């Protein structure tokens, strides 16, 4: 039999002014199961809490109802007090007779009756409350970081510096990502390589970072604190332990004319290659599609010249399983494909701008490689078609971005700034050249950003034309750019030597496939979704998975680095305790009733519902039932409302508790 204690708070006069608290205490005191009821001036005060604790002990109370303010205000306070007195905190409920009663009604009689009913309802509820132990989940203090661009590098270094092991997985042969491709970076124009490569080397040398390049995520199982990740390490054909990175193989490789993706295919590389000189690791990889040995079975020059004997044509893809407690996703972005319409995509290409047909129409990243001192032209701005220096150059912004008719309605955020940067780099390298920019708006929020943009116009002589380009075509060795200047209201035509398109930022190819492996959600563009746009911007709804960088949405470098450090901080918060503690308001499956229709699994937004096989002693499958992982469940209860047989139940909000409340009314 329950011995319920009911404590009615006056809240100074906030409650007692409209509610006859003595009468409520008296009436409720007569309810079956109520062993003790009293009223007090301030229940939340120290004396009030002591009154509660003393009563629990002296009256041998089994459950407590505190009728006072909103539980959103003081539920934690009273549950702590109850716990201090030796009861499970979840045996205490609050009845809200202030916000929901005394403050919103003036009639004393009505308010008193209502308050009595509210308290009565909570008394009936608390009778059905069960002891709920705090949930603890063991945490593997190792982290996986997916993507070795600046976001992944920053997150990995922060976590590793904190003393935790990090597994960093990169799809390409080297880490560095897009930032390593950039020539100089806004708004300070420091060279990207100069600030990036030291971080890449730090990753390579860090005792806590295990680096897998040329590798991809194959499978993710488990949940927060306890993930098992299968990584597919593709065959490099070069033994990383033996290779010294001397580079002789590359100089001797007869295949020298393979477009280098890192140089946006305008520079060439060999079949055995590192994508760029500062690559980390500095171990070459054999591109099996273009290697003569793999194509014809004859050649093997690299193997012959390799001193340490590192070249291994027999190497196989490897599957490696790593146990981690947290995952940071930092897969970054890809540039909008201008000339081709991706299959099955809503997104339309920009065939009218001649990209891919007119050789001197390039995208922004290609311009970066032209401007880069380590790029294919050694930092000289030269046209891809004939190697001449362009004297008139046109930049066109918002290619793909903010173009609903092309299928992308968002702003890519960085193009205004990098186009301004491009005009400067161009002016620095081609003193007698002229840069034109077609733009819709200049969006330059950010520290020192607008100043930077103004500088491109005022000091670096870029001519900004507000309007869009209608047509581009080749005429002789010129590209005729036709557009409108809407500020002046005239048509303009520019004879350009080169055109640079500021193409939109899109998530990496395969972002959706990876999301499905991870069980995280993504938007219609395949950008990954954060748990809350404002308050949980680096967490996924799936517990234990965090986001960093442009995989979540277009971002510049400072923002990416901030988010990466924020994600790392979230991982470190998780790793700060050996056991993850959570409020036990989670769903539980009653296996005897579950028939395994998995409606619960279908509606769970957190992927907390798993399939569990029940077998007899001989190992024969009896049935497959749902299992709610308490480490992942967020406690919304949608599963219970969906379950036809109510075989899954949300602790703290069970059908018994709710029906008891309804029946009390």
């Amino acid at each position, binding site marked *: 039999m329950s011995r319920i204690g009911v404590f009615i708070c006056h809240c100074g006069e906030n409650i007692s002014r409209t509610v006859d608290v003595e009468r409520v205490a008296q009436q409720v005191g007569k309810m079956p199961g109520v062993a003790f009821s009293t009223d007090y001036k301030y229940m939340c005060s120290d004396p009030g809490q002591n009154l509660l604790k003393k009563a629990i002990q002296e009256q041998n109370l089994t459950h407590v109802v505190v009728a006072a303010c909103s539980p959103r205000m003081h539920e934690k306070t009273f549950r702590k007090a109850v716990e201090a007195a030796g009861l499970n905190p979840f045996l205490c409920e609050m009845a809200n007779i202030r916000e929901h009663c005394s403050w919103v009604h003036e009639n004393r009689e009505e308010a008193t009756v209502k308050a009595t009913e509210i308290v009565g309802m909570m008394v009936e509820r608390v009778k059905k409350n069960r002891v709920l132990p705090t949930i603890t989940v063991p945490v593997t203090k190792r982290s996986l970081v997916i993507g070795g661009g600046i976001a992944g590098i920053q997150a990995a270094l922060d976590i590793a510096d904190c003393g935790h092991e990090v597994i960093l997985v990169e799809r390409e042969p080297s880490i560095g990502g897009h930032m390593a491709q950039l020539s100089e970076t806004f708004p300070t124009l420091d060279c990207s390589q100069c600030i990036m490569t030291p971080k890449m080397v730090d990753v390579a040398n860090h005792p806590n970072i295990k680096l897998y390049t040329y590798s991809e995520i194959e499978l993710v199982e488990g949940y927060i604190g306890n993930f098992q990740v299968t990584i597919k390490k593709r065959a490099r054909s070069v033994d990383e332990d033996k290779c010294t990175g001397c580079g002789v193989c590359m100089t001797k490789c007869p295949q020298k004319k393979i477009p280098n993706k890192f140089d946006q295919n305008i520079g060439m590389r060999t079949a055995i290659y590192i994508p760029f000189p500062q690559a980390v690791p500095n171990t070459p990889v054999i591109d099996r599609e273009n290697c003569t040995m793999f194509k014809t079975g004859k050649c093997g020059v690299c193997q012959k010249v390799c001193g340490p004997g590192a070249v291994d044509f027999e190497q196989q893809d490897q599957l490696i399983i790593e146990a981690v407690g947290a995952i940071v996703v930092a897969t970054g972005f890809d540039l909008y494909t201008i000339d081709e319409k991706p299959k099955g995509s809503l997104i339309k290409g920009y065939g009218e701008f001649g990209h891919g047909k007119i050789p001197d129409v390039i995208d922004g990243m290609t311009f970066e490689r032209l401007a880069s001192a380590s790029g294919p032209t050694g930092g000289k701005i030269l046209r891809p078609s004939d190697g001449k220096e362009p004297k008139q150059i046109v930049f066109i912004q918002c290619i793909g971005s903010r173009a609903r008719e092309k299928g992308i309605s968002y702003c890519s955020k960085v193009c205004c700034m990098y186009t301004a940067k491009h005009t400067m780099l161009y002016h620095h390298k081609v003193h007698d050249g002229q840069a034109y920019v077609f733009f819709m708006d200049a969006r330059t929020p950010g520290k020192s950003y607008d100043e930077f943009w103004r500088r491109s116009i005022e000091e670096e002589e870029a001519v900004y034309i507000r309007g869009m380009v209608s047509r581009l075509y080749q005429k002789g060795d010129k590209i005729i750019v036709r557009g409108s200047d809407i500020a002046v209201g005239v048509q303009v035509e520019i004879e350009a030597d080169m055109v640079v398109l500021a193409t939109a930022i899109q998530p990496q190819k395969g972002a959706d496939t990876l999301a499905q492996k991870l069980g995280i959600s993504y938007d219609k563009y395949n950008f990954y979704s954060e748990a809350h746009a404002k308050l949980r911007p680096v967490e996924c709804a799936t517990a234990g998975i965090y986001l960093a960088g442009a995989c979540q949405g277009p971002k510049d470098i400072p923002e990416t680095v901030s988010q990466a450090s924020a994600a790392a901080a979230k991982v470190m918060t998780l790793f700060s305790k050996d056991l993850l503690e959570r409020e036990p308001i989670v769903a539980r499956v009653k296996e005897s*009733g*579950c028939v395994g*229709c998995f409606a619960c699994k279908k509606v769970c937004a957190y992927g907390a519902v798993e399939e569990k096989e029940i077998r007899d002693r001989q190992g024969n499958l009896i049935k497959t039932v749902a299992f709610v992982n308490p480490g992942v469940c967020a406690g919304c209860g949608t599963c219970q409302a969906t379950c*036809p*047989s109510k075989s899954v139940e949300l602790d703290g909000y069970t059908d018994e508790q709710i029906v008891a409340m309804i029946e009390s009314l």
Partner: protein
Amino acid sequence: MTEPIDTSIYSAVTAAIQTEAQRILAAGLVTAIVGYAASRRNGSTQPIIVTDAAAAEKLIFTPASVNNLALYLTKAKKEIPKKGKIGIVVKGCDLKAIVGLMGEAQLKRNDLYLIGVPCAGVLASTVQPSTALTADTIASKCTECDARLPSDCDYVPNVQLPTQPQLAGKYAVEIARLEALTPAERWAYWKEQFAKCIKCYACRQVCPFCFCEQCLCDRNKPQMVDTTPRPAGNTAWHIVRAMHLAGRCAGCAECERVCPMDIPLNLLNRKMAKELKELYDYEAGFEVNDKGPLTTYTDKDDQSFIK
């Protein structure tokens, strides 16, 4: 004399089922076949489980093959062999139920050998099994059937379905009639219907989708629905049942067929199906869906009823 319905193909269908059943049993492709066999009453059929190729000749298909045999794959599988594939004779409506059960992880396609029946209709439960099939004697569900020819089966007899006379959809007509009434009139109608209920739970027993091991309506901690056969509990039971079947019911109308008190139960299910079609463009069909209309959502769903 009402318009007759051509069921002449049923003899060819019967022959084809027998041949196929004999073949797959003899070849060991299946361990048993669930089908229809002649029963003692003139013209009636009853479900049969055939495990021997020699017994395949017992299988028939007639206008009295009313049962939804899907039940024998889940709840009533006592006599079904535990090992091997099971063959089953399915009408379009029954197949929809099987497809629904696959979507709810109760059945696996690979465990089944589906023998689809081109179906011109079956008899209403209110007429004698030997009655000729006419526009009057046909089961209500058959008047609105859109699934006379099952697809994606392992075998479908190669017979040409005869053209059907245009039949007025009996449920559609009745739903429209009820919808035109006032709430009070509708309440009076259903009050009278539910008052007949004796809580025999035949509707639950026969429903392929009532596969819960413990029904919510049998629970007593807490008691969600009064279990005694009184009007309040009866009404609650039928409301809860209709809600639990919403978006799942495949329209086999077995609940209505077996109801000893002739409560028009399928009317509730058809009404819900109609609403879900209008709201979310969902219909039970031959394609296995990952999620039903009430286990998924879009951010643009109708909310005109929400303040």
